[in-house]
């Protein structure tokens, strides 16, 4: 119950204001189609430089939580999911809004998000110290395999193409080696003077997540977006709470599904929402009503995608393996403040780790209150014309990447990576494994070098890296993640051929 002693930090004026600002801002950003939680968090990182590490993390954590929930507003009112995690919400939420139950759908969405989110964060609170204690036994060889596991898991599970996912991971690992070598001081792959200091993680994150979105918006041309305006008549909040109690089964299914999926690195909120929706439909006696504006559909999807948030941080905070692309961006945010997550995070920085986690718990409650309060406002912002969004995200990306080191080189790197990623994404590559490679590359290399030195002094590299129960367990996980993804790709291809 150590976490209880760090609740005070959340209610310090600056920290609480940031939590409030992050929550409200996140709700609005989340409701805006085209602004994914990952991109929103990446664009916010430069604003955390001037803050203390814990304050910066509170802001990023609040934005992460509330962008996922905020995406439900546009999913319900406009049938445009604010984020991929809200796809399942749009199925019944928008039908409810069309049936004149928009307010109830929003109430249920935020209430179930809040309940799912709180349970997810509680799981994070109770599981993290256990895993962190286990991670204390890790040496350089294990940390090396863990970093490789992080890349292969995201590369194989988060990508539509098995080969392209792993290729993206390798590209990220290579990008992380650009610059001066830490031990020998040798220049590596410096093709341009902008790369002398290596690739700045924040500039890369902004480029990889924001610029493809800008180019994607531009690719639609001068199109007029016709968004149907749905009137939202007021509805009593009490009846929504009663409806939530009636949807207890869907709420339980959503929360449990989201929590489990969140714990698996590489499986995001989009899958959590869709799996929970599917399971709730299977177990419901009213399964025929799903898709026609059934409250259980909204409850299952929203409780799942927010229950996923907390557990997705468990592997990040204990083993440095981000559970989702947004968690990978959060890892970048931790690293720029000099905080390296892992087994000793809770020993070295307990006030940072616990205050951050506690702020996510408080943030869930704020998210429910302000979500319901600002939903109508957020829906209006979601109608912001695409050209304004494209121009605004471009300018924010340029200022965000420049402000990291006040260096134009970072802007060039950001734009080059962003344009390159946009083209690669059009051909089935994905940004998440590339980012993971970029972030975990230095960790993998440092432990590989350290492990090699130890290995040379004892039994040799093979015995050091490839034997021992923990090494073998991690290698098995690497092979399993790659093998499973390979089998799934083969199965999908066979199905397509049959069709």
């Amino acid at each position, binding site marked *: 119950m150590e976490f209880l002693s760090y609740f005070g930090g959340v209610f310090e004026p600056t920290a609480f204001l940031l939590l409030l600002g992050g929550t409200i801002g996140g709700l609005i950003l989340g409701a805006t189609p085209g602004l994914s939680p990952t991109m929103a968090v990446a664009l916010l990182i*430069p*604003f955390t430089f*001037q803050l203390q590490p814990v304050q910066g993390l509170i802001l990023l954590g609040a934005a992460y939580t509330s962008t996922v929930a905020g995406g439900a507003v546009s999913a319900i009112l406009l049938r445009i999911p604010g984020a991929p995690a809200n796809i399942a919400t749009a199925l019944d939420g928008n039908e409810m809004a069309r049936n004149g139950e928009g307010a109830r759908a929003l109430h249920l969405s935020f209430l179930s998000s809040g309940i799912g989110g709180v349970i997810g964060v509680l799981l994070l609170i109770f599981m993290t110290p256990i895993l962190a204690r286990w991670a204390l036994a890790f040496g350089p060889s294990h940390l090396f395999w863990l970093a490789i596991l992080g890349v292969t898991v995201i590369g194989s599970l988060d990508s*539509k*193409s098995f*080969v*392209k996912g*792993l*290729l993206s991971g*390798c*590209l990220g*690992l*290579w990008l992380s*080696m650009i610059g001066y070598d830490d*031990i*020998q001081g*040798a220049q*590596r*792959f410096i093709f341009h003077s902008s790369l002398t200091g290596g690739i700045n993680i924040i500039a890369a994150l902004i480029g990889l997540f924001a610029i493809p979105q*800008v*180019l994607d*918006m*531009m*690719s*639609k*041309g*001068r*199109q007029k977006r016709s968004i149907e305006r749905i009137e939202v008549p007021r509805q009593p909040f009490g009846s929504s709470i009663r409806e939530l109690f009636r949807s207890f089964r869907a709420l339980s299914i959503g929360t449990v599904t989201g929590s489990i999926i969140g714990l698996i690195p590489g499986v995001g909120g989009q899958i959590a929402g869709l799996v929970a929706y599917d399971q709730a439909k299977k177990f419901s006696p009213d399964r025929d009503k799903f898709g026609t504006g059934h409250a259980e559909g909204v409850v299952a999807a929203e409780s799942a995608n927010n229950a996923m948030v907390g557990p997705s941080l468990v592997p990040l905070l204990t083993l440095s393996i981000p559970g989702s692309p947004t968690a990978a961006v959060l890892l970048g945010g931790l690293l720029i403040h000099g905080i390296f997550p892992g087994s000793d995070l809770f020993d070295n920085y307990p006030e940072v780790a616990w205050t951050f986690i506690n702020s996510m718990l408080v943030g869930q409650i704020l998210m429910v209150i302000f979500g319901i309060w600002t939903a109508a406002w957020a829906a209006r912002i979601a109608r912001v*014309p*695409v*050209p*304004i969004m*494209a*121009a*605004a995200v*471009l*300018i*924010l990306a*340029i*200022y965000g990447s*420049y*402000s990291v080191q*006040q260096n*134009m080189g970072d*802007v*060039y790197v950001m*734009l080059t990576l962003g*344009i390159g990623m946009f*083209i*690669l*994404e*059009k*051909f*089935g*590559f994905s940004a998440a494994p590339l980012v993971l490679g970029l972030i975990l*590359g230095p960790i*993998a*290399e440092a432990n*590989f070098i350290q492990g*090699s030195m130890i290995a040379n002094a004892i039994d040799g590299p093979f015995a050091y890296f490839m034997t021992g129960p923990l090494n073998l367990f991690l290698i098995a996980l690497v092979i399993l993640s790659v093998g499973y993804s390979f089998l799934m790709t083969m199965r999908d291809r066979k199905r397509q051929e049959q069709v």
Partner: protein
Amino acid sequence: MQYSRLQHLIPAIAVLALSVVVLWISYTQQPAEAFLFPRLIAIFLAGFAVWNFIRALLGLSRIGGGLSKQEVLNILPGLVVMLVYAFWASKALGFYVASTITFFLVYTLYDPSALTDGKAWLRRLFISLAFMAVIYALFAILLKVQTPRGLFF
């Protein structure tokens, strides 16, 4: 979008070429100790790049719809504005002036309103100035970021 083998071949060749360069540099540059880990990664990078190239060559690489001519034509003006802004205007004209012009140009280029609509021009100008005022307040005043001044500011 219609599947095109040639479209998938181009990025596959580009990634393969990059991986060959990385592999070559990793095995030829000195000191060799500094390239120990890059060599390991370069082998896997090249391996996957070859695999991806063969799949594209055989027409098996079907994930991702590629880019249509219309999409390229739509992106092109915005991309040119973006590149001129980053590589020239931000230093020559000054960061804030160049950013305001870029915001206005991108908004104008992709705004579906008729170019003869006077009110739309005023709206675009007002929104560009208002947005840049917020950016100036955030970065120049709050975060105290020093930006290239150029001809203006």
